C-alpha cells in the first residue's frame, strides 16, 4: 500500500465540496440553521428558574393578618395569581381552571395561628411535571417562612416588659442559646466556576456540540450511501484511488465547513450572549477532535447503509439517545450511575465535559486529558472501521 497522494485527495475533496456547493438546500441549511439554533437554544435555556406560573388563590379567611400574608405571597414572582371567591368548590380542578397550582387559605387560619394551634395552608399541585411541582411548593414554603419571621419580629417588639425582666434571670448560656434560636441561621455561599450564575455559560458547549453532531453525522452519513445509491461507488473504485484517499478526501470538505460553523456559533454566543472563551487554542483542539470523531461516526454509518434513507435513519437512531443522555443541557449527575456508563460512549459527552472544564473551571490539562484521549480514540476507531467496511463493499 502506497502513501496517499495529495493530488488524489484534493480531487476527491474538491468533488465533495462541489456536491455540497451544488446542493442548494443543504447549503442553505448549513448557513441558516446554526445561527438560528444558537439563538433559539441560547434563549430557551437562558432562564432556568420557574416564573409566572398561573395559580389560583382562594382566601376563606378574610382578616387583616391573612391579608398581610396574601400581600407577601402576591409579591412572589414564581406565581401569577388568579384570585377566586371563597365560595368556590372546585379549587382542586386545576385543569378546568387552566392553572398549575391552587392555594387555599382555610377559614379561621389567622385565628389558629394566634391560638397556638396553626392550621396548614392547602396547596394543590400539578404533579405531571415533577420539577415544577417541587419548585412551586418550595416557593410557597419560603413565602410562608417570610411571613412567619415578620410575625415573630412584631411579636417580640410587642412583648411586655415582664418577659424581659424574667429573661434576665435565666442563666447566660440559656439566654445566648435563646437569642441564637431567634435569629435565622444562614449559609455564606460562594459560587465558583460560574460566578454570574448564568445557565447560558454552561449550555454553550451543549449548543455547539448538538448542532455539529446533528449536521456532521447526518451529512457525512449520506456521502458514501449516495455514491452507492447512484452507482458511482463502483466507478470510484475502478479508479486508482485508494480507500484512505477516498476517506480523507471525503472528510476534508465537511471538516472545513464544520470548523466554519464552530466559529459562527462561538462568535454569535460571544456577541449576543456575552459568553467568554478561555484558552481558545485548547478549545479549538477539543472542537477539532470532537469533529473528527463525529465525522468518523457519520462515515461509519455511511459505509454500512445501502441507501441515503437508511443512512439518515441510522443517524437519527444514534443521535436520539445522544441528545438526552450526553449531558449537553443538563448535568450528567442527574442520571443514574448505570446510565452514565452509556453516556460515556457518546463523543458529545466528552466534548461537553472537556469544553466546560476549560472554559468554566479554567482547569489544567490533567483534568480533561482523558476526554481528549477518548475523542481521539473514537476518531481513530471510526475511521479505521469505515476503511475496513469500505473494503468489505469491494467483495
Amino acid at each position, binding site marked *: 500500500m502506497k502513501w496517499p*497522494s495529495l*493530488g*488524489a485527495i*484534493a*480531487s*476527491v475533496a*474538491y*468533488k465533495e465540496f*462541489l*456536491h455540497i456547493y*451544488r*446542493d442548494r438546500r443543504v447549503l442553505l441549511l448549513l448557513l441558516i440553521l446554526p445561527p438560528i439554533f444558537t439563538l433559539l437554544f441560547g434563549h430557551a435555556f437562558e432562564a432556568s428558574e420557574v416564573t409566572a406560573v398561573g395559580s389560583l388563590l382562594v382566601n376563606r379567611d378574610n382578616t387583616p393578618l391573612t391579608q398581610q400574608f396574601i400581600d407577601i405571597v402576591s409579591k412572589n414572582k414564581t406565581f401569577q395569581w388568579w384570585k377566586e371567591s371563597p365560595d368556590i368548590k372546585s379549587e382542586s380542578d386545576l385543569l378546568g381552571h387552566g392553572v398549575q397550582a391552587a392555594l387555599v387559605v382555610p377559614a379561621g387560619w389567622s385565628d389558629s395561628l394566634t391560638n397556638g394551634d396553626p392550621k396548614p395552608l392547602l396547596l394543590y399541585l400539578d404533579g405531571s411535571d415533577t420539577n415544577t411541582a417541587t419548585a412551586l411548593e418550595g416557593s410557597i414554603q419560603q413565602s410562608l417562612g417570610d411571613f412567619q419571621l415578620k410575625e415573630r419580629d412584631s411579636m417580640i417588639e410587642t412583648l411586655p416588659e415582664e418577659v424581659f425582666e424574667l429573661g434576665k434571670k435565666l442563666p447566660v448560656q440559656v439566654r445566648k442559646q435563646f437569642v441564637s434560636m431567634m435569629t435565622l441561621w444562614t449559609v455564606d455561599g460562594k459560587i465558583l466556576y460560574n460566578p454570574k450564575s448564568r445557565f447560558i455559560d454552561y449550555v454553550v458547549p451543549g449548543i455547539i456540540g448538538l448542532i455539529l453532531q446533528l449536521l456532521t453525522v447526518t451529512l457525512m452519513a449520506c456521502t458514501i450511501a449516495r455514491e452507492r445509491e*447512484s*452507482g*458511482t461507488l*463502483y*466507478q*470510484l*473504485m*475502478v*479508479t*486508482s*484511488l*485508494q480507500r484512505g484517499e477516498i476517506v480523507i478526501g471525503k472528510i476534508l470538505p465537511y471538516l472545513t465547513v464544520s470548523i466554519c460553523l464552530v466559529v459562527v456559533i462561538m462568535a454569535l454566543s460571544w456577541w449576543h450572549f456575552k459568553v467568554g472563551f478561555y484558552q481558545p487554542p485548547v478549545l479549538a483542539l477539543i472542537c477539532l477532535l470532537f469533529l473528527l470523531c463525529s465525522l468518523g461516526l457519520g462515515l461509519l454509518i455511511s459505509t454500512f447503509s445501502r441507501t441515503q434513507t437508511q443512512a439518515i435513519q441510522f443517524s437519527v437512531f444514534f443521535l436520539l439517545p445522544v441528545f438526552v443522555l450526553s449531558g449537553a443541557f443538563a448535568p450528567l449527575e442527574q442520571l443514574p450511575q448505570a446510565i452514565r456508563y452509556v453516556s460515556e460512549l457518546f463523543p458529545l459527552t466528552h466534548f461537553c465535559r472537556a469544553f466546560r472544564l476549560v472554559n468554566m473551571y479554567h482547569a489544567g490539562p490533567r483534568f480533561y486529558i482523558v476526554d481528549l484521549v477518548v475523542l481521539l480514540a473514537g476518531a481513530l476507531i471510526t475511521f479505521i472501521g469505515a476503511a475496513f467496511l469500505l473494503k468489505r463493499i*469491494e*467483495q
Partner: protein
Amino acid sequence: MTEPVIVLNHLSKSFGAVNAVQDLSFTIAPGTIFGFLGANGAGKTTTMRMLCGLVNPASGKAAIASYDVWKDRHLARTKFGYVAQRFSLYRDLTVLENFRFFGGACRVPGTQLEERIGRLLGLTDLEKERDTAAGSLSGGTRQLLALGCALVHDPPLLFLDEPTSGLDPVHRQQIWNLLYDLSHQGKTIFVTTHYMDEAERCTEVGFIESGRLLAKASPRSLKSTFRARLLEIDIEPLMPALVRLRNLPDVLGVSLRSGSLRIYAPDPEKLMANWRKSWPFPDLHLLGERWVEPDMEDVFTAYSQGYDSVLKRSTS
C-alpha cells in the same frame, strides 16, 4: 502471437446457491473488440465486475496485462477503463468537472490533464456541453461522457457494460464509430450487449449462458458452426403459423424475421420435402421458401436455446 491482454483461468463466482459464473477460461488478444453476449442474468456483468476487481472471484484466476485482477487490482486498474451499465458519473458536476475529477482520481499528471481533456472533449463531441451538468445531458451524450471519463488515463483496455442499451440508433452508431476509432488505435475493447447487430460488429464474440461459456469465436466462424442451411418460409396468416409450427415434433424453434419465418430443425431438407409432398395445414398458405445464411441472432438463439442438433459442436 502477442501476449493476451485478458486471461481467464477457471474463473467462478456464486452468490448463495446461484452459480453466477462457472469455470470460465479464455483469453483475449490485444486490439480485439470482444462482444460478450448472453441473456439477462447469464453472468456477463459478474464476469466483468470480477475482471474489474469489484467482485472477489470465488475460485480460479484472471489477469489483465499480467496483473491479477484481485490481488493486484490497484495495478490492473491503471490498464483499463470501465463504463458501467447504469450511468454512474456525478450528475451534479459539469462535463468538465467530471473529466477533471476522474483525471485526478486516475492520477493523470496535472501537466497532461488539460490537454488530454481537450482531446477527449473533441473525441466525444462534448465541446459545446463542457459546462453542462452531467445530469441534464441526454442519454446518448451521457454515455459518450462516461466513455470519455473511462479513457481519461489512456488505458489500453476498455470495459463497457451494455453501453448502448436504451439509446437511439444515431447515438448507437456514434458510440460504435468511437469504439472502432479506439480499436484502430490499438485499444482492446470488451463489451457486453443484447443487440445481435452489435455482435456482428465485434471481431470476436463469446456466448455465455447460466454462467458457462458456450462458444467463443469470430462472428464469421460462429455462423459457420451452423450445421444445416437455414430454412426461411413465407406463410399466411403469420402468427397462427408461428405457433403451430413451433409445436411440431421435427421443429426445434421458429423465429420471425422481417415478415418471414425461420425454422430451426435438425433436418430441414427432409422437413421441406415432406411438406412439398403433402402440406399438413389446410388453413395456412405457404407462399414461398428459400435457404438463407444464418446471422448472429440465429446463432445466438441456437446456442442459448440449446438447439445442439443444428450446431456443429467441434469448433470454438
